[in-house]
């Protein structure tokens, strides 16, 4: 998703009403996946996605495309999630995998996927919150490192090296899970 002339929000603010629906269609599932993996249940995840779009609508008149629109939406989502956790009495996302709600979108959502995919999901869920967040933004959401760096307020070089380190951590955890089951 790009910024500038093709930016849905820019087009919407300029008078293209359909652009907002396109934005919802494109970003809604990504945002829902983001919240589910942060620990929200299905109902809360959709509720938060709605809140993201409500906030975006409210700020549309002041929106200026200076980066990627998907990064902007995910920034809003991340802030919303942090606010949500604060209200729930937890400043940071739960570190305890068992405490987090089942992030699965439904019993049949992953039907057809391999056993390895399931272990990958388990391995990701068992990592610490900082690692999960970085992999979420840089790998799952495929944001440019520059956007991730701005969001996490760390240098771009640090993002690159941490992504490398986090993927290696994930691989180690995955191999351990596969050994447990072999």
């Amino acid at each position: 998703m790009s910024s500038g002339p093709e930016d849905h929000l820019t087009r919407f603010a300029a008078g293209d009403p359909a652009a907002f629906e396109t934005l919802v269609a494109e970003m809604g599932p990504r945002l829902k996946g983001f919240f589910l993996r942060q620990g929200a249940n299905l109902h809360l995840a959709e509720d938060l996605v709605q809140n993201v779009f409500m906030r975006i609508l409210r700020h549309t008149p002041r929106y200026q495309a200076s980066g990627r629109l998907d990064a902007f939406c995910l920034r809003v989502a991340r802030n919303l999630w942090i606010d949500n956790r604060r209200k729930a009495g937890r400043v940071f996302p739960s570190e305890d995998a068992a405490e987090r709600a089942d992030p699965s979108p439904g019993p049949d959502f992953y039907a057809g996927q391999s056993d390895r995919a399931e272990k990958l999901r388990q391995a990701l869920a068992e990592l610490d919150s900082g690692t999960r967040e970085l992999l979420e933004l840089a790998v799952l959401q495929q944001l440019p490192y520059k956007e991730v760096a701005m969001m996490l307020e760390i240098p771009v070089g640090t993002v690159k090296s941490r992504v490398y380190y986090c993927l290696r951590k994930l691989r180690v955890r995955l191999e351990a899970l596969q050994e447990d089951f072999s």
Partner: protein
Amino acid sequence: MDSEERLALEQLAQELREAHPHPALSTGFLEELSLRVQSKWSFRSAMKRNPVIRVAAGLLMISLVAAPVSAFVILLHKPKSAPQPLGFAPVEELPQEMLSTSAQPSAPTQVIGPEDEFDLPGSWSQARLNALERANRLAQAGASWRQQPSGVATHIEDGLWKRFLEACAQGDNQVDVAWLESTLNELRALAQPSPAQQTALVAWNWVASGQQGTAALAPLAWDGAPFVVESR
């Protein structure tokens, strides 16, 4: 990091993405969002506060609610005894030869709230309002078409007139502006338009500008069609 390690980690990243497909939104998501927009900001305060919210709420409702235009207008405001002129300038001026000198175009049904609530900042884009009006007129034509008894004679051999009737029947509410303008220019350039081409010009021109023609200019129009002022 050597290239082999880099490739392995890139492959792992790709596997991670494939293991986490984006979950679909629930079926009522857009509808619920539009209701939240409506309730958080009432339609009146939304229009006064933020014109962008007006467009979002109004068009989410148009696209979600499969209701004829009259029902949509009733939803927005109480209809008055006489139709209110919208007060907008048409997008284009019709060539004089396309209009009957005795034509008294009836005011199109108002789409957005009464004029006294139409409190827009001066920088509001006319294009956005025109888009709403075009969508409204096309929906109005659709409602009129669907009320016609079956067997109304319409010669649909011409692509553009056929396209208009299809749009009415299918309940299309979007008009591609560039296509519409290009089509109208082509039609106007015809030296001897066929009856179907004449009717298509009158019909699409009405969608574009709200200016009505006459039955003489639209020989294939159905009785009571909203884009002519005289019924056949």
